């Protein structure tokens, strides 16, 4: 499944909105650390990753946590993983 980065961004924001429904996506600064802007504790964060795995089919290993700290970097990471996984 290959998705545009806009589609990936919409999916990620929808997942965030389900787990932390108080979040206003318009308030998220996309190139700043997500977890300092959105009130997510460790369990919330794991749930976000689990939902991403479930809905986009991408498992983010612990070694890659450093690559998904902002909304922009997470979208770029997921878009690239999805593109790499889809048949050329």
């Amino acid at each position, binding site marked *: 499944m290959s998705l545009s980065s806009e589609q990936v961004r919409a999916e990620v924001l929808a997942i965030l909105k389900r787990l932390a429904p108080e979040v206003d996506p318009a308030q998220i600064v996309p190139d700043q650390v997500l977890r300092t802007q959105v009130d997510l*504790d*460790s369990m919330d964060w794991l749930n976000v990753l689990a939902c991403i795995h479930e809905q986009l089919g991408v498992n983010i290993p612990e070694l890659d946590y450093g690559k998904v700290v902002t909304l922009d970097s997470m979208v770029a990471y997921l878009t690239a993983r999805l593109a790499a996984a889809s048949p050329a």
Partner: protein
Amino acid sequence: MKPPPIRRLPAPADPDDAPAADGFSWAAVARELGLTPGGGVNIAELAVDRHARSAIADKAAFRFLGAAGARREVSYRELAELTDRFGNALTALGIGRGDGVFVLCGRVCELYVAVLGALKIGAVVSPLFPSFGPEPIRNRIAQAAGKVLVTTAAAYRRKVAPLRGELPSLQHVLLIDAAGDADAGTLELHALLRAAPATPARVPTGPDDPALLHFTSGTTGQPKGALHVHGAVVGHYASARRALDLHPDDVFWCTADPGWVTGTSYGIVAPLVIGATSIVDEADFDPLRWLGILAGERVNVWYTAPTALRLLLKAGPELLAGRRFPDLRFIASVGEALNPEAVRWGQEAFGQTIHDTWWQSETGGIMIANAAGQPVRPGSMGRPLPGVVARVVRHVEGEPVTLIETPDTVGELALEAGWPSMFRGYLGQPGRYRESFAGDLYLSGDLVRRDADGYYWFVGRRDDVIKSAGHLIGPCEVESVLMAHPAVAEAAVIGKPDALAGEVVKAFVTLRHGARPDDALRLELLAHARRRLGAAVAPKEIAFVLELPHTRSGKIMRRRLKARELGLPEDDMPAWGEEK
């Protein structure tokens, strides 16, 4: 802050006459710290100023690691100056002995300066967990009639400014990151620090003077502010040496936030009093980052939590492949019982046994531990430290508390009053303080068994308090916020077992007539709770139910809900103190 009813510990006639069988006496530890009977004691003097006058003045007290990679060392000498300036700045604002000072920010240098500087001038300090939402913050500051809050501009705007009108006691809000454009009703901390003199700030304090306030949760009613005194420092010092094997030359990393008692007793006080160097990481848990800190900062002693250890374990062996930790000498854990698998994994991953420890906000410091040099029993919290007398008791509502001597019999863990870091009151709730003692026994609320060799094993909680990622959450605080929503008739909250966090908060709600139990309402309630309580306290799950189980007198039977959740027969749950 209203003068709280401080419980004074009986002074032994001549404590040196009667050291315990192992030669330990609290009086001897106090003497080692230079304290004299009847003399003064101040936590910040022993933690900072004493070292700033000594040969280790230029040694790093803290090494602060910024979220974006900055690294800053602060020596004991610098820390003494910064805390003097902060103490003098508070004095200039009219703050003094017994006044409540709250801190609400991430793990940055200013937090540590504020806590220690306030202690110097005899103020009572309460660090709040930065993930608290507005309601837990308001409740705690209001209960203590807090006069000062040290926080960030963002936290102030989001969580405090909207409720400022409900906090008439709060005279000063000091922002650590405002630069010339401070919000109305706030002051710039750094401007105050620059203007304040670096002369010694000191108000004489005694061993029974209040110093620290840690809020904890019970089943019912408001959060309880457990009040600790300056004399507690004797317990912090002795327990860190014995249970954590901490020495002056060590690099020490306590991963807990000072908003929880561990992050204050062992993240601030104990390592400084010992004269060690403490690592403080501003960032949230990240497996790769944490392993990098352990190796790169050459950590010798590491005090962390089961949830973090289980998350590292879950990350799998690739994470640890090729990594070595030659400097790491001692690993300890606190927060909830450490499962035997995690202990065994520690051996594989680090070549070290992980030492579980047990204590609470009320005990102020470690009471029971798998101490250095003793054989560890995986899954056990260990044995009482020297100077601590633990008991297992039968405690049933309306009956006298009796000792259980038979090994491997479940009862409530109790401690003989008199250790220095024992809490001395629940702020403004003297009745609840009295209820937590039976004679001279402090009743911990934790159910345990003691094996024939004196090792203690955690069994569960006696009450309905939820333990999530090592932190206590009171069901009442969560239920009352849910019930403030117009669609909710009644709410009951339980801890749902979770492989990583121990328990997570799950809420069951009944709705008012006309409200529809659909997904939109569920998300609305979740948002409502998270906005007011913050992620650390708000429920992770909300379920709609048609009715909640009640006792005949109308109390919600949370244990029944929990039994249902677990698929157990409802009469199988231990019903300690519950009405039938």
